[in-house]
Structure formats: C-alpha cells, structure tokens
C-alpha cells in the first residue's frame, strides 16, 4: 500500500499486548539464560557455531509465475520470498550510465515480527535492509550488459526469526540466477550475533534481540554482523556490523562467517542444478508434445488429400 502523503500520519498508538506480560521486561541475565542451557546448546538444540542451513535448509526456485525468476528460502522460522523482473527503464533518470542498476526492496509482512506489527509504509529498518541488499548484490551482477536500465529485485519476508538480511541475500542470489541474469558468481550470506565471548552463528530473533542490548558489564562485546561473499572469487561483497566489539572479535567473526558462507554454497548449487535439469526436461516434454501434434495434423492432412483426390 502506498504511503498516504496527503494526511498527517500520526504514530500508531496501539501497542502489542506482550508489553503487559511478564516476559517483556525480563532482565538481561534472565534472557541470556533462556537462550543457552548448561550444556552450551541453544534453545532450538543447535550448537553455537551451527547454522540452521546445516540442519535444515529449504530453498526452491520458480515460486512466482509472473516474475522472470523467483526463489523461496526457509531457515526454520525465517521465511523469505524473492522475485526478480526483467530490465526496465530507470524512472527519472537523465544521465547516461554505462552500467545498469539494481533496484532492491526488502519488505516485511505486517505479521512477520514477534512484537510489533509492521506498517505498510517502508520504515527505516526496511530501507536500510534494501540498501544493504543492493550493496551485496551489485558486485555479482554483470551490470554492463544492461546500460541505462534497471533490474528489480523484491524480497518479501514472510516470517522473521533472525538473520533476515542473510536470508534475503541468499534468496535474491538464487532468484537472480533463476531469472538467467548474467552473474559473476554465486552469492551467499550469513550472520552472527555476538554476546560477550559467545558467537551465535545464524542467530534467531531472540538471540539478535539480546545481542542488540548492551550488557551490564562495561566493555563486553555485543552486536550483530552480516557478511555476504562471492564464493568462487572469495570476495566480500557486503559487511554490516552494529553493536560494539573490539577488533579481535570482528576478526574472529569474519573467519567464522567466511566458513559459514562457504557451507551454504553446496545448498545453493544443488538448487540451481536441479532447476536447470527441470527446465530442460520441461522443454523436452513440450517439444515432444508439439511433435505429436504435428504428426497428428499431418496424418489428418493426408486423409483429407486422399478424400479430395478420390472425390
């Protein structure tokens, strides 16, 4: 729904009922203890350095029939759909540009987040995600092939349970390849939440929430890092960090993320290969059907010819 510019859009004054539950104002340590048990396992049974992609990674292409290419990615409860459209004219452009542009938009479904309802108008969060997505995708698309035009990439996050930027980038990479947009490389992304000494790879929403809160102890590291990589060329295409952490921590996180991004690659490759095989089979089937029709038609023609000649 477009933003209503004519009226003054006041702030929403309804609040989530969760504000009045006991869970809402839990202390930092309580939240922390909720996330991790004595054995060092996370709430959903994963180890700290275990990404959801390792145990459960579901992705498929050709979700949206109207789009040139589309993809759907599911990391347990984080679900994202992405569609890519053919190049179109850049609106309001008045300068000749040798390179084409990418237009990215990340949108949350109104019911995607656990606490607040997302409004239709893009908020600062969504805008920042869109910018990060474009930054991540730009180095991988062969933009010189469509000068003065733009390719639209739309990501819709149906359910947000953490690492939504990483999910958006992975989905967009798949959708671009599915749309047969020329790309330099496959792109994968992963994020990590830092809470003190611990690093939660591929964090859930609760883990991200805690990582964004400042620990009581002064000087403790906390924050979230998302990194996207071009797998074959070994290049970082986007790196976003928020929070507060020292260099050692960042360096360590880069290494972990590098490895994790590589771990996702085989999953993406599998989907793409399957996609190619399916496409070819489909085409083969269509061709066979066409051949059959033609044969039937020819037979009919022969019949008529004979009828005409005899009559």
């Amino acid at each position, binding site marked *: 729904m477009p933003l209503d510019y004519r009226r003054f859009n006041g702030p929403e004054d309804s609040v989530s009922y969760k504000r009045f539950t006991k869970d809402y104002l839990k202390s930092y340590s309580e939240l922390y203890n909720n996330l991790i048990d004595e054995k060092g396992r996370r709430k959903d049974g994963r180890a700290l350095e275990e990404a959801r992609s390792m145990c459960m990674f579901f992705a498929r292409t050709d979700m949206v029939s109207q789009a040139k290419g589309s993809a759907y990615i599911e990391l347990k409860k984080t679900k994202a759909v992405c569609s890519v459209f053919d190049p179109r004219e850049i609106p309001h452009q008045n300068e000749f540009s040798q390179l084409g542009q990418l237009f990215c938009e990340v949108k949350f479904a109104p019911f995607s987040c656990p606490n607040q309802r997302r409004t239709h108008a893009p908020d600062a969060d969504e805008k920042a995600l869109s910018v990060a997505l474009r930054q991540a995708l730009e180095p991988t698309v062969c933009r010189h092939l469509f000068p003065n035009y733009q390719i639209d990439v739309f990501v819709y996050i149906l359910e947000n349970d953490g690492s939504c930027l990483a999910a958006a980038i992975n989905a967009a990479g798949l959708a671009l390849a599915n749309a047969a947009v020329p790309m330099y490389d496959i792109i994968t992304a992963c994020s990590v939440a830092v809470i003190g000494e611990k690093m939660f790879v591929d964090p859930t929403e609760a883990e991200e929430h805690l990582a964004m809160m400042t620990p009581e102890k002064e000087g403790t*590291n906390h924050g979230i890092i998302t990194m996207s990589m071009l797998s074959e060329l070994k290049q970082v295409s986007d790196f976003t960090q928020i929070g507060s952490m020292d260099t050692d921590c960042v360096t360590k996180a880069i290494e972990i993320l590098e490895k994790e991004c590589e771990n996702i690659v085989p999953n993406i490759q599998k989907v793409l290969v399957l996609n190619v095989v399916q496409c070819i089979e489909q085409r083969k089937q269509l061709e066979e059907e066409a051949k059959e029709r033609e044969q039937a038609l020819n037979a009919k023609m022969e019949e008529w010819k004979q009828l005409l000649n005899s009559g």
Partner: protein
Amino acid sequence: MAGLLLSETEKVFILHGVQDDYRSDGRSNIDYRPMELETDVVSHASGSARLRLANTDILVGVKTEIDVPKPDKPDSGRIEFFVDCSANATPEFEGRGGEQLASSISNLMQRAYHSSQAFNLKQLCIFEGKQCWKLYIDILILECGGNLCDAVSLAVKAALFNTRIPFVKAALMDGGNVDLQLSDDPYDSKLLDVGSAPLLVTLCKIGENCVVDPSAEEESCSVISLIVGVTGNRQYYTQEEETDKKTMEGKCTTIAMHGPGSVAPKTLKEAINQGIIAAKSLDEALGQALLRERQENIGFKKHSYGFLK
C-alpha cells in the same frame, strides 16, 4: 565527483603513491586533511558545531526536547539524527536527489550511536518510564566536497560536547502526569558525557591498500569504500588525569560497505584495523581542540569566527 576526468596514467600515479604510503598531496594513508572546527555557533540550539574539512562544510545543531522513553528501555533517553542535503551543497541534491544520501548517513549515525558503550542514553533520563530528554541532532550539509560521513561524525561529536542540558530541579508525580521544574538560569545546566561517542572513518580502497579521507581524485580511483565507526576515548575529553582507568581501546560500533565493488576478507580485516588506528588519532586531536576551545570560552578569550571566513 562529476566533471572529474583522470587518465589511466594519472590513476596509476595515485595508485603507486598509495602503495608507498605517500599520497599525491604529501599525506600518509591514515592522515586527514586539515580541518576547521568551531563550536557554539548557533545561539538557539543547545549545542552546535561547524566543521570544514577541505571543501565539505557541515553545520550541526542539537535541540533538546522532552519525550516519553521507549517502553522497552524505560531508563534511557532518545537520540535522533536528521540529515539535510540541501541543493545549496551541490545541484545534484535538488528536489529529492539528496534524500537517499541523507537517509543513509542518518541511518549510519543511528547505528553507530546504538550501543550504550558508544553513547550512554541513560544520562538523558529524567523520570524512569515517564520522561526523558530527546536529542534532535540536525545535520546540515552546507557544502559537499566528499568524505561526508567522517565530517558529519566529527561535527556531531563536537556539537554533543558543546550541548548543555538544563538541570531538572524537581520532578513531581501529579496524578498520572509528571510535573517538571526547571531552573530559570540558562547557565544552570549540565554537560553530556560524550567521550566515548563514535567517529566514522571512511576507508577508500585503492589498489590493495586503503586510505582515509580521500580527495576527489583518489575517490575516482576506487570502487569500494568501507565505513568504520569507532568509539572514542573518554580520556581525551576531560582535563582530569585519570591514570587508574586503563585506556579504553577503540571498539567498532558499526561497519558498512559502500560502492559497487567487493573486497577480499584479508583486506577487510586490515582495513578495519587501519580504521581504528586512524580513528584514535582523530579522536585525540578532536578532544584537544574541543578542550582548548572550552578553556578559551571560560576565559572569554574566544574569538568567534562565525560563517565568514
């Protein structure tokens, strides 16, 4: 920048200079160009600063207002950044042209100030859960000459250093409402603790190395830049010698990439380290300048320069 054309050989010259840590204007890779800074330039703002870095001119004004704290953080104040890219700065900002840049800078600042290790919002609390100070930080870009992020973050920190918040004499609960009593004396005010406020450093990748504060020529040789937000050191912003407190190491509060290119992981790590080193020296210089100016202010020796210089 538009209208700047460099030949291949000129680009190679710049690249070689960066490789040898000796740039075409004589700086090393982590040196900034000279800047001019003046605080307290706008009389109606609680705090203000004007910074000029080469051709970039930034004016920051801080307005303080009273607001209700966020429900999930009842004991913290609020801070918000607004960037205005007027067409004054460059004709490209005409109409809605500067909107995207403005939102990306304000977003970056918001992220950099997010952690309370960078800027403690608890000092803005008046009455827990009911009332707090809200700082509106309005950033005006008067002239755009590249390296905006760094200049904006420096100017914001200087303006915050200069900000005075009135003392609240009493806060009374009157029914469900809070009744505040403020002092009538405008000089009866407190200063903010901004020592740890982050500075943004933009590192432009040229060849295999990164440089800070790139000139327009250097910018055109680079396809990717990395913006690192690094917390400041409180030590540089107080006169009292605090020897017992160990020097706080600069921490990253935000990292973002900008530009169509990509970097190798190794370069990324090096760039972050380089950014922290650059931020440290920048922070020290800023602290010294601000303290000196405050001294002059107290002694009424300060000569106001204003905008005509």
